[in-house]
């Protein structure tokens, strides 16, 4: 691909989705956009790029953004965050929410594996939470992937990565060569389109936010803005989950890492950050 063409897509993706495309990702551009060019009836990617230099159809732009935003995910991805979710986060909210309500936001839901993993975990923990209500709000920038998430049908490969067989037996229904989550689990998650670059004013306030493996695609300034906005939509004693390769250090002061819990963050000034200080002070005394 010509460097000027690369720049065109790079600028488009940055302005429309915040996605930062480095030069070494030009192979990704070609492999992902060739199918889009084919879908739109262009003879080649170059032909589509010519159109992009004029006034392109907004739907074509949407397709390009969808094709470029990665959707790598799996049930119980990385497994540890879900242990922390059970052992640290649920343990805290259980004693801190007399109104017996927990609101969770999955900010990059992709094809649904993360919100459904949380739904299954909450279902498994139901006997510890009698009379509680759980709200899982799951958003993504790709409408196509959101439709997949709502349908909740997964291939044999997808249901074998990270998902214990007991949960497959309990919550999935076999449908030909696919496995579909049952209505009860699907009903626990509400999906919506949301672009993290947009103002978050339409969103509520959440106890727990999952925003894993999405900030890595943004530049520092955008990361800081998104995290700053999220701080306005999380309870003072809430928890934020980021991906293993992500951090708040040097990006925002709104969140701080929870000591001893890798990938887990709390709002600056939160009790989750103080507790550890007390214990370390005790240890020193």
């Amino acid at each position, binding site marked *: 691909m010509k460097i000027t063409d690369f720049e065109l897509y790079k600028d488009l993706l940055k302005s429309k989705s915040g996605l930062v495309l480095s030069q070494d990702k030009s192979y990704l551009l070609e492999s992902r956009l060739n199918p889009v060019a084919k879908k739109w009836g262009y003879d080649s990617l170059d032909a589509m790029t010519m159109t992009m230099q004029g006034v392109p159809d907004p739907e074509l732009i949407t397709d390009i953004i969808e094709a470029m935003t990665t959707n790598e995910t799996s049930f119980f991805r990385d497994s540890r965050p879900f242990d922390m979710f059970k052992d640290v986060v649920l343990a805290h909210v259980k004693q801190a929410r007399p109104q017996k309500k927990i609101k969770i936001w999955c900010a990059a839901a992709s094809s649904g594996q993360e919100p459904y993993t949380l739904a299954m975990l909450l279902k498994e923990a139901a006997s510890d939470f009698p009379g509680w209500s759980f709200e899982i709000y799951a958003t993504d920038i790709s409408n196509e992937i959101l439709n997949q998430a709502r349908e909740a049908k997964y291939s044999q490969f997808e249901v074998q990565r990270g998902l214990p067989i007991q949960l497959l037996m309990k919550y999935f229904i*076999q449908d030909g060569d696919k496995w579909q989550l049952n209505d009860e689990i699907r009903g626990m998650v509400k999906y919506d389109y949301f672009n993290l670059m947009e103002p978050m004013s339409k969103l509520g306030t959440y106890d727990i936010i999952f925003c894993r493996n999405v900030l890595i695609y943004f530049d520092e300034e955008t990361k800081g803005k998104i995290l700053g906005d999220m701080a306005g939509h999380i309870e003072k004693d809430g928890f934020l989950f980021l991906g293993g390769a992500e951090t708040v250090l040097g990006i925002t002061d709104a969140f701080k890492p929870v000591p001893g819990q890798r990938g887990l963050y709390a709002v600056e000034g939160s009790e989750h950050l103080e507790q550890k200080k007390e214990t370390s002070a005790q240890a020193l005394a």
Partner: protein
Amino acid sequence: MKSCLIVDDSRVVRKVARRIAEDLGFQCEEAEDGQKAYEACESTMPDAILLDWNMPIMSGIEFLEKLREMENGKGPKVIFCTTENDMNHIQRAIQAGADEYIMKPFDSEIIESKFIQIGLLEQSA
């Protein structure tokens, strides 16, 4: 080093599974049917067993039932690894005492994730 017994009547599948398990740090033995697997367990009980379902002489499910009745036979973690991919087979396997279930075809990622789930491997950082 943890040990893994690979039970499958296909030499090719055993070879592929063996390479994956060895890469994950297991010391591997092979058996080509349930009877041979039973004999292997009589001599040394492994930590893990990757078990095919359909085999001549003794099937995987027969072997599993016999294994769980052996002295120390509840010790090994058993992962079925079979082309049988319907809910009835899965339920039957779990009832007979299997710890996990892999539907073929598998890859190294699936085997690794199952070993982690049953506690034989640590999640890598």
